[in-house]
């Protein structure tokens, strides 16, 4: 798998610093988990974060903080790693990170196109979902007006920006005019995060906005 399309470095750095909205955070996490180059970039920014801790001016912890912590540890010394949520066979081959999220039921939104919302823990501005489109599906012509982050999980699509296969990252905003065409052969599954209000006009947004409840 050769990944050709990557997030801009600013987005990777914002991810590493924990600044992204959670839907966006998830898309970058999934891309980085599959892309060694972006993973290295994220780790480099985290290394700078580590150095920032090292050089931060220390502020004294309140009195007895260490003892309180040890008391807490004595009560329950171990913690469990978060366990993957069970998913139906429908979504086999999901990236490891997504296996930790609950994914809602599939909704058909157009011929050959369906989505499954991903339950995000907080109430961030972005929404995330898995979008599945049948081979050869041509999306309606549209422009972007929200910001949208996409990571291809399976299959491929193409538009003026190039061909996007597994692991590829696509960033959409109003500056592009797209008419994505899903590749032949197999369905295309994408993880999509959309930021914005209820009036979605993003990448696949215009197509699905009448169908998605937010």
């Amino acid at each position, binding site marked *: 798998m050769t990944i050709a399309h990557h997030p801009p470095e600013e987005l990777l750095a914002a991810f590493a610093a924990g600044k992204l909205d959670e839907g966006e955070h998830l898309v970058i996490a999934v891309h980085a988990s599959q892309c060694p180059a972006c993973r290295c970039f994220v780790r*480099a920014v985290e290394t700078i974060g580590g150095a920032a*801790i090292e050089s931060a001016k220390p502020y004294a912890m309140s009195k007895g903080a260490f003892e309180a912590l040890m008391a807490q540890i004595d009560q329950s010394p171990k*913690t469990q790693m978060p366990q993957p949520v069970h998913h139906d066979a429908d979504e086999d081959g999901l990236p490891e990170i997504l296996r930790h999220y609950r994914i809602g039921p599939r909704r058909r939104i157009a011929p050959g196109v369906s989505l499954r919302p991903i339950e995000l823990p907080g109430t961030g501005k972005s929404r995330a979902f898995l979008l599945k489109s049948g081979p050869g599906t041509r999306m309606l012509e549209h422009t972007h007006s929200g910001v949208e982050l996409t990571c291809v999980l399976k299959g491929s699509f193409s538009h003026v920006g190039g061909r996007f296969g597994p692991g590829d990252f696509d960033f959409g905003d109003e500056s592009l005019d797209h008419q994505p065409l899903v590749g032949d052969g197999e369905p295309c599954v994408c993880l999509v995060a959309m930021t914005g209000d209820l009036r979605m006009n993003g990448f696949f947004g215009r197509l699905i906005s009448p169908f998605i409840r937010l």
Partner: protein
Amino acid sequence: MTRGSQAVTKSIGSAIRGTFRSAKLRTNDNERPKAKVEWAELIGRIATHGDRDAFRLLFVHFAPRVKGLMLKAGASGEEAEEIAQDTLLAVWRKAAQFDPASAGAPAWIFTIARNLRIDAVRRSARAGFAVPDAELEYLAHPADSPETQISRRQDTARIADAVALLSSDQSAAIRMSFVEDRPHAEIAEALRIPLGTVKSRIRLAMNRLKFLLEEPK
């Protein structure tokens, strides 16, 4: 770039001796183990036999600094203290999962604190659950093939070299802009550059970091 495991093992040995010597003689928080390998060794001691002295050293060093960074990044005093406390709790609990071949203990601790911060923000909005992608990069992967482990080690060395090769202004630009979330005006002041050039300085720093991280052809 060769980083023989033998050399690493040897330096852990001398590091840990140095650590405990300095721990005994320690008069203030500023006297501390210096190389990251020493922190890794202390974390290893927590993992293998719940070493409380090792943990205390980590706490004394990192808790006040995590608190300091959180305050700098805009957390309230109470939040900063809680995040620092919970970060060290996670260090204890996740010690066995820490991979010494990763980018190092401070970076690992940074990711823990960062995720706790994200969780804290979420909790204030709605009862949330933990960020699952938390420290995936920093966990040991015992199932990895030797080839994968070698490539992880090479990545780690390349990342450390790249960060070290950034100019101090470049790493300050990245640190202040992303990690500490400082306004551009403050970055301009710290770097002694006009306000209007901050954005392009950050971009240049990103480009340079990317260039330095590229695998040798």
